[in-house]
């Protein structure tokens, strides 16, 4: 959805971005939450009270609030705080990999299409159109069928689904920059194409890339957790939020917290990224505010 309402023109970030961003209490809360979650994911091994694979069947399915288990334990008796921290780490890592890989390739395609408009724009955009005619779920199914279910399949599927979206955003943004006088001036100094793209074109498209990447990160985490929930992604006993929810589904009627805790975590993280992405867009380009 962000692809269709995406900004074409975005002003470069100015100082005071953080202040403008945090003026809206929802955006401020989202930013704080995102920072907290990322820190928790990075330092999961230090924060987690136990090992993520340590199970103690005597505490299996203990509800939240049990002694020594504030979030309870899963069906194998593993501490859900530990599983949640490691699961979050894995889900964020998968999303991060997909946005970097897919977004990176997409951005390069977008720059090439805009820079070599005469002979690369049409073929690249046709390719993008074709890729856009497939929803992410089909990439997920097809790649999991070919490679076999697993984390790699999900990351690849999410990356492939991100490529055309990022390519379109970057091309639109770069086309505007290409019309600026300073590009012509830089070209007149005899700068090489690669250097021109790197030094002048790319930096001026950064805010568009940044806004889209933030919004996409939330979507990719949601999609990735859905694929893992289906059994096409992270395989048990690997802690991953979607896979954890799927494991908990079996015990829904006896111990609903096993499925609910990872699900709520996904919801909150994705919500925070969506709110943050929207706020970033508003802050970076007030013209888009409706």
């Amino acid at each position, binding site marked *: *959805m962000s*692809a*269709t*309402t995406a900004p074409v023109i975005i002003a470069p970030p100015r100082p005071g971005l953080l202040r403008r961003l945090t003026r809206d209490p929802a955006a401020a809360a989202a930013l704080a939450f995102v920072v907290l979650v990322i820190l928790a994911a990075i330092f999961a091994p230090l924060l987690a009270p136990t090992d993520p694979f340590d199970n103690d069947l005597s505490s299996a399915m203990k509800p939240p609030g049990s002694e020594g288990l504030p979030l309870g334990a899963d069906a194998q008796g593993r501490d859900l705080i530990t599983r949640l921290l490691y699961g979050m780490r894995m889900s964020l890592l998968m999303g991060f990999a997909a946005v970097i890989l897919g977004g990176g390739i997409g951005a390069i395609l977008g720059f090439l299409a805009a820079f070599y408009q005469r002979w690369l724009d049409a073929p690249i955009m046709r390719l993008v*159109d*074709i890729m856009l*005619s*497939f*929803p*992410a*779920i*089909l990439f*997920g*199914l*097809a790649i*999991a*069928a*070919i490679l*076999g*279910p697993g984390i790699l399949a999900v990351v690849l599927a999410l990356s492939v689904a991100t490529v055309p979206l990022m390519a379109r955003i970057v091309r639109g943004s770069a086309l505007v920059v290409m019309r600026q006088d300073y590009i012509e001036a830089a070209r007149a100094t005899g700068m090489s194409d690669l250097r021109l793209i790197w030094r002048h074109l790319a930096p001026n498209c950064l805010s568009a890339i940044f806004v889209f990447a933030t919004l996409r990160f*939330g*979507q990719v985490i*949601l*999609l990735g*957790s*859905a694929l893992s*929930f*289906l*059994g*096409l992604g992270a395989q048990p006993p690997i802690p991953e939020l*979607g896979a954890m*929810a*799927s494991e908990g*589904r079996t015990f*829904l*009627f006896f111990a*609903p917290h096993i*499925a*609910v805790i990872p*699900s*709520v975590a*996904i*919801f909150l993280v*994705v*919500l925070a990224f*969506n*709110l943050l992405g*929207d706020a970033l867009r508003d802050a970076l380009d007030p013209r888009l505010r*409706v």
Partner: protein
Amino acid sequence: MLRYLIQRLLLAIPVMLGVLLIGFLLMQVVPTDPATVRAGPSATAEVVAEIRRDLGLDQPLTTQFGLYLWRLAQGDLGVSIINNVPVVQELGATIGPTLELMLSSLVWSIPLGILLGTLGAYYRGSLIDRGVMAISVAGVSVPVFFLGLILIWFVGFKWQWLPFTGRGGPLWTLEGLQSIALPAITLGGVFVGPVARMTRTAVLDVLSADHVRTARAKGLSERLVVLRHALRNAMVPVVTLIGLQIGFLLGGAVVTETVFTWPGVGRLAVGAITSSDFPMAQGTIIVLSLGFIIVNLIVDMLYAALDPRMRAA
């Protein structure tokens, strides 16, 4: 309009070929030999060799791709490795329930989304608008399976109001309606948000247009202005954007079918992939992709029908 539609059709052809090529390649990388599978466990080496020749497996890959397309055109997608049932037969049984689920989700979520979006735009900046925006951002953030599990727990398990596994029967029976209620609420539930958000933006755009100002200036009631002048013109972008969201809906449908053990193509696909039933996986992916391409073409036509300017082109 004809030219536009032909253009869309022409774009769909390489996409379809791409899908078929991926399906074909899938069968090339799999570790099992289709001839051995087709022959069954008790077949002799001669029988397997004969089937191998019949299927063209001794031919070069390009010829095999041609043969593959030829078999496909005749509706032959092979047989399931797991239960030896023809893939086409299983697909035929699951396409109906999937369409049923998608349509019964759209039938309530699109009107509700359009209503909420229009209200949000009309009362822009008010508490109602904020509420609509909150619903829509929550809607695009909630995992589909979470919504499904909550409904199963409360409505199905705790209150025991509705069944939550399988399909009770065709839509026109009471059992059918009862069994589709929770899946349709789940899948539609995640679709209301995006529709509301797109409608709100589109209506806000139109409300500031000249013809709306004119309608107001000639003294039409606000209700008429919004319904007849703003909403109608906002429908073109809304239909286009809903079309773009069909992929999102398909993803949701696969998850919803799995959560509610709904006997659709999505659940069949996931089951086939996780159990390494390659012919079945290939068949489901081809059918889902083709279905998606067809739906996109229909949306294009709808778009042309809604916007008179497209008809002239």
